[in-house]
C-alpha cells in the first residue's frame, strides 16, 4: 500500500527534516504516527498524500513509484487517499456541506448522490444542524469534524489523519477514532498522527515513532506498558 525506502525530505533548500525513513504499510493496516512536535510527522504524511517529493529514496503508494509517476496519473492516486489536515484547510467561503461535497464533486459524483451522502455523514459527526454554516461560524472542533467528513466521504483506501482529535473533546475524539476503526475493518489503511500517548494506549495498533531524526516501527505488543 505504502512503501518508503531510505526516504529523505527537505523543504526548498532547508535542512533535511526526514532522513533515511524506511517502512511498509500493508493494505488494511492501522498505524499511529507519533513523536515530539517538529519531529516531522506532518512532513511524512505530506509525502504520503503526494504533496511533496522525497529528496532521496523511493516512495511507493499503491504500487506506484511516485518519482516516476506521470503528472496526469496523480489525481487518480490522490482520490484514493483521504487526508485530514492538521490545520483543516477548509474553504472559507463554502458551507460545511459544500466543503465535504467538494471531494465528491471533484471525482464527478452525481449531485443527488452527493447531497444524500454529505448530509448523512455530517449528521453522523454531529453537524446535522450546521450543514449550511461556513467555517468562520464553526468552532475548531466543528471544523475538525467537517475536515474529517471531507476526508472519509470518498471512501479512500488510504486515510491519513494529522492530529484528528487535537481540537475535539475526548468523547468526540473516541467517536471519530471508532469511525476510523470501522473504516479500517472494511479495508481502509489508516495512519493517525498524534501526540496523544493515551489515545495510542487505548487502541492496540502499531506505532511509527519519529524522534531526533530517528525512525522506528513498534509492534502493539511492545506498547503494553505505556
Amino acid at each position: 500500500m505504502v512503501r518508503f525506502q531510505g526516504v529523505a525530505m527537505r523543504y526548498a533548500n532547508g535542512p533535511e527534516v526526514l532522513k533515511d525513513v524506511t517502512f511498509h504499510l500493508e493494505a488494511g493496516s492501522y498505524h499511529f504516527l507519533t513523536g515530539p512536535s517538529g519531529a516531522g510527522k506532518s512532513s511524512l504524511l505530506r509525502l504520503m498524500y503526494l504533496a511533496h517529493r522525497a529528496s532521496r529514496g523511493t516512495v511507493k503508494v499503491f504500487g506506484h513509484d511516485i518519482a516516476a509517476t506521470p503528472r496526469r496519473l496523480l489525481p487518480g492516486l490522490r482520490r484514493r487517499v483521504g487526508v485530514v489536515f492538521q490545520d483543516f484547510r477548509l474553504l472559507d467561503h463554502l458551507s460545511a456541506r459544500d466543503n465535504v461535497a467538494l471531494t465528491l464533486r471533484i471525482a464527478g459524483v452525481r449531485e443527488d448522490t452527493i447531497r444524500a451522502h454529505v448530509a448523512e455523514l455530517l449528521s453522523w459527526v454531529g453537524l446535522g444542524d450546521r450543514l449550511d454554516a461556513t467555517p468562520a461560524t464553526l468552532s475548531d472542533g466543528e471544523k475538525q469534524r467537517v475536515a474529517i467528513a471531507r476526508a472519509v466521504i470518498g471512501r479512500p483506501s488510504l486515510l491519513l489523519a494529522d492530529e484528528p482529535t487535537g481540537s475535539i473533546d475526548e468523547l468526540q475524539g473516541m467517536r471519530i477514532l471508532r469511525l476510523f476503526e470501522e473504516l479500517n475493518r472494511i479495508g481502509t489503511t489508516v495512519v493517525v498522527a498524534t501526540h496523544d500517548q493515551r489515545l495510542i494506549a487505548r487502541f492496540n495498533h502499531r506505532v511509527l515513532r519519529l524522534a531526533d531524526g530517528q525512525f522506528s516501527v513498534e509492534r502493539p505488543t511492545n506498547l503494553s506498558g505505556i
Partner: protein
Amino acid sequence: MARRQFDLPFANDGSGRFLPWMIALMVYLASLATVAALTTREVVESWNAGLEDTATVEIAPGPDDAATDGLVARAMAVLRNTPGVAAADPVPIDEIGRLLEPWLGPDAARENLPIPRLIDVRFDPGAVIDVAALSRALLAAVPSARFDSHGLWLDRLTALGDSVQLAALVIVVLIALAAGATVVFATRAGLAVHAKLIELMHLIGSRDSYIARQFQFHAMSLALRGGVVGVLIGALTLGALTVMWRPIQEAVLPDLTIGATALVALALLPLLAAAIATLTARITVMRALKQMT
C-alpha cells in the same frame, strides 16, 4: 437546488471588479468598428446600385451615315432584347455635335464628318445585369461598339469601401487580442491569489481541467456581463449619431439606418467576447497548472 457558487472564492479576489469594465470598453469600441464596416459596405453598395443603373454605348462611325445608322440600329436591337434594360436612347446627332464642338468646331455634324454615335442606356433599378455578357453581345453585333458601364468609378469606390472595411476588421481583431491579453492577466492574478486553494484541490484529487473550468465559467460570466454593457452603450451611441446625422444624411448619403445585419453582429459581440474569455482562461490555467506538482 440553486446553482451552487464557485469552489474558488472569485467573488472577493478583485479580478471580478475590473475585467467586466475592460471587456465593456472593448466591446463598445468593437461595436462602433463593426457598424462602421457594415455601414460603409451599404453605402458602397448603394452607390454601386445608383451608378449601375446607367451606362453608355459608343459606336465608331461606318463608311457613311446610312451604314452608321445601321450599326446604331443593330446595337439598339441587342439592348432592347436584354432583360433589365429599361431604356436605350440614341443621343441625337445635334447633341453629339454640341458635345464635340470644342474639339471639331461648330459645324462638325453638318459637314458629314464621321462622328461616333452614343446610346444612353438605363437599367431597371435593382436588376442584376451581367455587364460582361452584355458587352460581348454588343461586340458580336457591332464590332466597333464600346460599352462603358462606369465600371472604373465603381471599382475605385469599391476599393475605398473595401479598405475602410478591412481597417475596421483589423481594429476588431486587435481589440479581440487585447481582450485576450486582459483575460490572461486577470486569470494569472486569480491563479496567484488562489494558489493555496488550488493546491488543496489538487491534493484532494482534482484534475487540472476541473480547476480550469472554474476559471473558465468565471471569465465567461464576467465577459458576458461586460460585453452586454459595452454593446448597449455602443447601441445608444449609434442611435444618437443616427439621429444627429439624419438632416445631413438625407442630403448627401443614402439611408444609413442600422440594418438587420448590423443588429445581429452587435448581438454576437458579447457572445464573441465571452467565447474569447472562456478559451483564453482555459488555456492560461491549463498551462500554469502544468508547472505545478
